[in-house]
């Protein structure tokens, strides 16, 4: 027998006795594993739910774009399909960009709070120690209004809020994370209900103390100078 035939027989024997059983065992064993990639291909809805920790509202709200492309537009102004060059550094309105920071100089060396200091002064950042990217995601950070952005109000509750608040609805996600300071004059325009509620409550509090602080202080002082009585204040006879 020539060596080549011996080698081929050995390979066949090796395949039958070792590789084939291993392949069978491996296939059998793999059937018990949870393989996400296969599910993703098999079911778009399942893939959806893997990322969604919500109640299922998401499917009712989500609308996938059909043939349309995400357009960069200025609300109320139509200047053709692409009014701004996607590479332009002079973009004035960034609410609908795929990369909201496109064209910003020295962007890589900057921190979020360098340009957005006020956005770091809220309960989520200060008390819960959330970082910007835990909600806004990694680069490129799409504009909040961008069609595919997870921050888009149509899916924000499912992709962002539900990470920490399972069960969040679209209405729940309308909570203003970066709420303006209610005491500032600008809040009367940006969030008038909050500003009015704040000032009405402040007026009630200030009114209460304007009335009762001097009243209580005067009462205390007056009792100090009351005439001495056997046991207590002689309210009735010193005047």
């Amino acid at each position, binding site marked *: 027998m020539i060596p080549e035939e011996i080698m081929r027989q050995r390979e066949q024997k090796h395949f039958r006795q070792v590789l084939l059983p291993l392949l069978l065992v491996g296939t059998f064993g793999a059937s018990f594993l949870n393989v996400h990639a296969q599910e993703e291909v098999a079911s778009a809805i399942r893939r959806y739910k893997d990322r969604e920790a919500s109640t299922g509202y998401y499917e009712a709200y989500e609308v996938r774009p059909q043939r349309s492309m995400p357009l960069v537009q200025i609300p109320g102004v139509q200047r053709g399909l692409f009014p701004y060059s996607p590479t332009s550094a002079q973009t004035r309105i960034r609410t609908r960009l795929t990369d909201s920071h496109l064209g910003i100089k020295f962007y890589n060396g900057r921190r979020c709070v360098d340009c957005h200091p006020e956005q770091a*002064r809220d309960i989520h950042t*200060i*008390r819960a120690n959330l970082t910007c990217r835990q909600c806004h995601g990694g680069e490129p950070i799409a504009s909040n209004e961008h069609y595919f952005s997870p921050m888009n109000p149509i899916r924000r509750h499912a992709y962002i809020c539900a990470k920490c*608040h399972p*069960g*969040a*609805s679209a*209405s*729940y*996600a*309308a*909570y*203003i994370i970066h*709420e303006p*300071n*209610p*005491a500032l004059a600008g809040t009367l325009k940006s*969030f008038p*209900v*909050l500003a009015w*509620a*704040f000032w009405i*409550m*402040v007026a*009630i*509090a200030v009114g*209460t*103390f304007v009335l*009762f*602080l001097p*009243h*209580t202080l*005067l*009462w*205390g*002082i*007056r*009792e*100090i100078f*009351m005439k001495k*009585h*056997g*046991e*207590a*204040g*002689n*309210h*009735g006879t010193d*005047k």
Partner: protein
Amino acid sequence: MVPTNSQGIFRFTLVQRLFHAFLLVSFLIQAATGLGRMTMETGWGRGVLSIFGGYDASRDVHIFVGRLMLVVLLIHIIYLMTKVDWKHLPKSLWSQDSLVPRPADVRQFFQHLGWMLGMRKYPEFDRWGYWEKFDYWAVFWGMVVIGGTGLLMTYPFWSTGFMPGWGLNVAFWVHRIEAILAIAHVFIIHFFIAHLRRSSFPMDRAMFSGNAGLSLTRHERSAWVERLEADGGMNALMVPQDAGIVKTVHFVVGCTAVVIGLYLLIGAAISVFQITW
């Protein structure tokens, strides 16, 4: 039997005192957990929160006690319903023994102010002074506003089912400002009137013992004592004043509450300048 000045006049029933004791304890817990969470950026705030197990545990305590307060408020309203003289409505609501405000309270307020300025005679208060009625109804107002907004924030999925999420931003600020108002009012004005006035120093124990000294009451609430003497109800309300260990316990509990309240008030007042609003 002629009442003597060493005796006390019965003012508060055991149930009323228990309501007040519950409010005292629960209010202090809510104030501590609420102020602690508000000032958690400071060492003082974190120190207060550590008593309750930290930032998150304090929230659980705050919510639990808040729910309990609302339940007790409902119980108190039921209790009130049992105390109303339904047969003589609406006249019974405006009686001298009722806590419902009357036009006479406004008149007595200004007369009291005049007395403070040395211009008028001390008013003849009946069973309840206008400041006591204000304190009583302020709790209702506070419980509705703070409790209502607290419920909205405790159950955000439920509340955002009928209002937009930004309503929680509004609820948060209303809750915060009303709570600050309540805390400051109780720890400054209520404590001053009940503890630091010359007439009540170091403590007005009536809400703990249930009775007030006859001599003081005769001067502070002369109309009430005269009314009781006129209709012959005085003897039924005369009780011996507490002494010894009971008196000491009342002092310790009351003064401890004052010390805790002042600690929270001063600590929070210093810390508010170091937190992010």
